[in-house]
């Protein structure tokens, strides 16, 4: 039983690794360089998949939070907790890559663009989520409060996006928006983007599986220690 589980994980990590290698080949050796944006356009293949898997993480947090509050399922709590950590990691990397992309393309490190700003708010909410767990007086309380915030945060994010979008139209900034993302992509670029997204989703799953099993061991140990003490 245990060995088959490890085999499954090993297979998962190996697949992730191979797909990622292929993506790196695509990004750096196969895909043509963008005519307008130059070589820095290749950041795109990291930036967008990071954003996608980051947002996916917070969707998983929502699912885990609902599952925990509704069914009191400890697996759901582990899922939400692990996913929130990975989501914060991915969104941090996404924001950093966004900053590093904005500089060569738009000439500034940061613009209060709706997507960027919403990501920042999202990031803040889920940093608060992790803090809430860290500062709670016990694990159950932290799990419950974090679950409540996981749901509230998820409801809030679309409203945040809408308000920032409207706000941007009131306060137009003298900068051009992202010029060539989306539409005018070379087919090979689109393929590379899709496979890269898949690769980062696999990274997410790999990390998630490991983190969850780590949480399980951690809790089991804590319970054991508590039962010895009493």
């Amino acid at each position, binding site marked *: 039983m245990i060995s088959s589980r490890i085999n499954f994980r090993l297979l998962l990590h190996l697949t992730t690794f191979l797909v990622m290698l292929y993506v790196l080949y695509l990004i750096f050796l196969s895909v043509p360089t963008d005519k307008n944006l130059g*070589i820095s356009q290749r950041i795109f293949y990291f930036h967008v998949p990071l954003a996608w898997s980051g947002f996916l993480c917070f969707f998983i947090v929502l699912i885990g939070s609902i599952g925990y509050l509704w069914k009191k399922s400890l697996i759901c709590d582990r899922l939400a907790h692990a996913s929130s950590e990975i989501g914060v990691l991915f969104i941090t990397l996404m924001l950093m890559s966004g900053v590093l992309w904005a500089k*060569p393309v738009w000439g500034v490190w940061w613009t209060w663009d709706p997507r960027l700003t919403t990501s920042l708010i999202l990031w803040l909410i889920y940093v608060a989520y992790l803090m809430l767990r860290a500062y709670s007086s016990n694990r159950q309380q932290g799990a419950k409060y974090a679950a409540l915030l996981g749901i509230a945060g998820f409801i809030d994010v679309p409203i945040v996006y809408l308000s920032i979008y409207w706000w941007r139209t009131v306060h137009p900034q003298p900068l051009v928006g992202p010029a060539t993302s989306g539409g005018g992509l070379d087919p090979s670029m689109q393929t590379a983007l899709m496979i890269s997204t898949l690769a980062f989703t696999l990274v997410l799953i790999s*990390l998630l599986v490991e983190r969850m*099993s780590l949480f399980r061991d951690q809790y089991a*140990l804590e319970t054991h220690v508590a039962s010895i003490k009493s």
Partner: protein
Amino acid sequence: MNYLKKILTKTTAILVVYLMLINTALAKTSGDSHASTPEDNLPYLFAVFALTWAGIALYIYYMSQKQREIKAELDSLKRNQE
């Protein structure tokens, strides 16, 4: 599992260095073909790449540390029980 994580951490580190080298090579060739695109942009790509992998590698390292702590505590518990 610990073993696997060690391997993962190390391969990631090696991968980062390796691909940075590839990238340097790549930058030289692409710089020639695209006269209009200055090479100035390259460090940004570098930075993003390094950051992303460093971030994920650090997280894996953090997990392996946690794992080690758990194992150490488990061992000490076992010793106490004997």
